[in-house]
């Protein structure tokens, strides 16, 4: 080969070398640029999800507060940690290092830890089962192969058993049950964050080159209830005083009592019922201020009581309300103008309709002759209420009861609300006699909250409002999407909501005045001195397949006040009272006490001279 040929070959090799270096340089430059300027792509995210083991960042469950901001339920997450000992027995250096690392975390002397780790035991050392979440977190960050840490969601209840069936609970599987915890679980729960990365062989997370992907989590929303813890506590104490405590069940130490004694129940003393409900609702807004149920349970020990005690019987259990519905029958009759407030009817002691005969509860067969509408309410004349129902007719009667909300859920924001049962013409279980029995509250199943809402309509100028328990949902401070949060809050439709105008305002006022007059005339136990309250007692037998057995009664009193501007609706319902068989004997005094407390607590001035 000639010299020029050699030179040509070498030059071509040089050119190829230069070209290769240029390509390599270009690749480096492109890599530099893409690393700085091009955002993390979906491919990188997918790579991280496939090749990385995500660290879950658990959210903190939201807090539940009463209307004044007092915490009723808060997050109290716990951790459980185990460490396997034998591996440290032979390597003293590691043992010393391990003890030194654990000592500040566990707040234990290093020597104690060393001694414990040295024990020859195949069983792991249970560091703790109820460790605070921060201690568990610090232990988990050590990333030791012999250390196992698990977390669980737990809740703290600063008020103990207060409002347990309203609040609900979260079980060990982090599943919400009952009440507000279940109803608003999606908001309380929040959502977890995820951190993807590449781990080394020793499980240390290595923040080296490679795809890393972080999904920020969001803590749960906080809830503010309409419940006032002071009113709730008083209501529960008052209701508890009416309940016959089983010999095996001691009084709840968490329940405060006046002068260490249960609040006095006026009248004949404690009715000693088996169970009961006491509901307080604000008339104008529908806010539930208190909702007491007995028996109840301790949400911290939900697993130790039968599950039937978990449910909120004020919204979930149905019953035949009895004569408390007579006030609604009267309202329907006045609205339909089949009677007037001054109207009278001839009470002959019995009345027949639909192939059945109905008599007054006092058993006086001769009747009471000419009876006014107010007397009908005051002395709870079944004959009179059947008379009104017959005058109304089936269509107007059931339509009015439907408008009062019976046979459908009220929409209260608590889990497992029942809609009750109201048979109407056309139903296979309906008969003509049902029209008569419904007029005095039999043959119809309702929930306590439905009665409260219906009475609220009477008190609120004829406007039915939706009862509610949660007045505010507070998002966490840090959230990744404020716009989405606002949309979610708007979708909740919190706060007062009017359902419909059931009866005209003037009719509602007239009925209220008649009810107040009837209280003063025939239900004096419900009177609150200095105030004018409206209401109606009820005494209903408990139906069985064989009819209504004697002795088993559900007594109640529903009312509102003070007139002329009612603020509160109160329902007291006592099941199977053993001391006293009439609502006016058992429930009316409790209603009076509850109303008095409300007037004092909220500073409602009296409108009559107190004698």
């Amino acid at each position, binding site marked *: 080969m000639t010299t020029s040929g050699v030179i040509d070959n070498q030059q071509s090799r040089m050119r190829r070398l230069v070209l290769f270096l240029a390509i390599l340089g270009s690749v480096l430059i492109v890599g530099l640029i893409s690393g700085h300027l091009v955002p993390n792509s979906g491919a990188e995210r997918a790579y991280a999800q496939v090749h990385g083991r995500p660290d879950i960042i658990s959210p903190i469950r939201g807090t539940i507060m009463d209307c004044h901001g007092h915490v009723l339920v808060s997050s109290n997450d716990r951790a459980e940690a185990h460490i396997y000992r034998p591996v440290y027995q032979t390597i003293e250096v590691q043992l010393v290092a391990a003890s030194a690392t654990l000592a500040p975390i566990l707040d234990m002397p290093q020597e104690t830890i060393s001694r414990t780790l040295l024990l020859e035991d195949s069983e792991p050392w249970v560091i703790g089962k109820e460790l605070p979440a921060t201690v568990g977190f*610090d232990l988990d960050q050590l990333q030791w192969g012999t250390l196992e840490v698990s977390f669980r969601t737990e809740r703290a209840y600063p008020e103990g058993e207060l409002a347990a069936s309203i609040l609900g609970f979260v079980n060990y599987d982090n599943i919400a049950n009952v009440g507000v915890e279940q109803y608003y679980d999606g908001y309380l729960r929040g959502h977890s964050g995820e951190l993807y990365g590449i781990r080394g062989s020793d499980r240390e997370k290595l923040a080296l080159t490679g795809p890393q992907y972080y999904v920020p989590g969001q803590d749960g929303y906080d809830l503010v209830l309409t419940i006032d813890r002071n009113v709730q506590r008083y209501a529960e104490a008052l209701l508890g005083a009416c309940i016959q405590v089983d010999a095996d069940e001691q009084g709840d130490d968490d329940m405060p009592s006046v002068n260490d004694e249960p609040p006095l129940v006026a009248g004949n003393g404690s009715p000693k019922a088996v169970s009961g409900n006491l509901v307080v609702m604000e008339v104008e807004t529908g806010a539930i201020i208190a909702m007491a149920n007995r028996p109840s349970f301790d949400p911290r020990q939900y697993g130790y009581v039968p599950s039937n005690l978990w449910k909120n019987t004020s919204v979930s259990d149905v019953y035949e309300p009895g004569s408390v519905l007579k006030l609604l029958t009267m309202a329907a009759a006045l609205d339909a103008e089949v009677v007037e407030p001054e109207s009278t009817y001839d009470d002959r002691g019995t009345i027949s309709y639909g192939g059945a005969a109905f008599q007054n509860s006092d058993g006086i067969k001769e009747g009471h002759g000419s009876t006014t509408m107010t007397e009908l309410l005051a002395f709870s004349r079944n004959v009179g209420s059947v008379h009104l129902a017959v005058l109304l007719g089936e269509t107007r009667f059931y339509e009015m009861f439907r408008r009062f909300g019976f046979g459908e859920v009220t929409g209260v924001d608590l889990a497992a609300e029942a809609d009750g049962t109201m048979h109407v013409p056309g139903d296979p279980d309906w008969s003509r006699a049902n029209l008569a029995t419904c007029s005095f509250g039999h043959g119809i199943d309702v929930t306590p909250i439905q009665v409260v809402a219906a009475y609220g309509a009477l008190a609120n100028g004829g406007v039915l409002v939706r009862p509610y328990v949660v007045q505010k949902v507070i998002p966490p401070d840090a959230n990744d999407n404020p716009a989405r949060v606002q949309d979610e809050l708007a979708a909740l439709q919190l706060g007062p909501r009017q359902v419909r105008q059931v009866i005209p305002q003037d009719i509602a006022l007239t009925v209220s005045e008649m009810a107040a007059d009837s209280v003063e005339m025939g239900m004096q136990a419900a009177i609150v001195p200095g105030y004018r309250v409206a209401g109606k007692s009820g005494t209903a037998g408990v139906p069985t397949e064989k009819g209504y057995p004697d002795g088993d009664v559900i007594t109640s009193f529903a009312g509102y006040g003070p007139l002329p501007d009612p603020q509160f609706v109160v329902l007291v319902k006592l099941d199977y009272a053993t001391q006293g068989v009439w609502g006016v004997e058992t429930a009316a005094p409790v209603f009076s006490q509850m109303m008095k407390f409300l007037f004092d607590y909220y500073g409602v001035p009296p409108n009559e001279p107190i004698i």
Partner: protein
Amino acid sequence: MSEERRGSERSRLASLLYYGGRVVRQGSGFQIEPRSLVYYGSMLVLVGLGCWLYLHQATQASLTGAEIVRLIRARQRLSLEIAELETQVALAGGSKQLLASVDETELVRSWDLARERRISYVPVQSSVGESDDEPVPTRPSPGRSATKGLVAIWHELRWQMEEWLGQPVSQHGS
């Protein structure tokens, strides 16, 4: 002659520039021209610089990523700590604890209060300097005052003065 040399040197330079550096055989060995050294050396430096920049970027990314992970962890721990503290505060502020403190400080629970109410207040008449035969001054009724006009206003003013002073301003005449 010198021109010829310069011309040959220029052509050699041109050929060098055009063809790049070159290795030429001279005699028994190879001679690398200095210009070639500079040329390829600078190429090597540039490539090395690029590699260094790449490694530097990767290192910075890793360090930043580690710092981000550390901050995420720190934030997580702080959230847990805040939740624990809030729970402790809530437990300390529960009704049960408050009522216990009420008992310890010997204060009275609000439920135990017996509220006095005075609804209808009738001022007590002073009996000093008055005979039993004299009529008890009474506040003129609104109905009667309305019909009396200026006289009623005068009575009203006098009644109010008597209340303030605690003694009759003058004899009250019907």
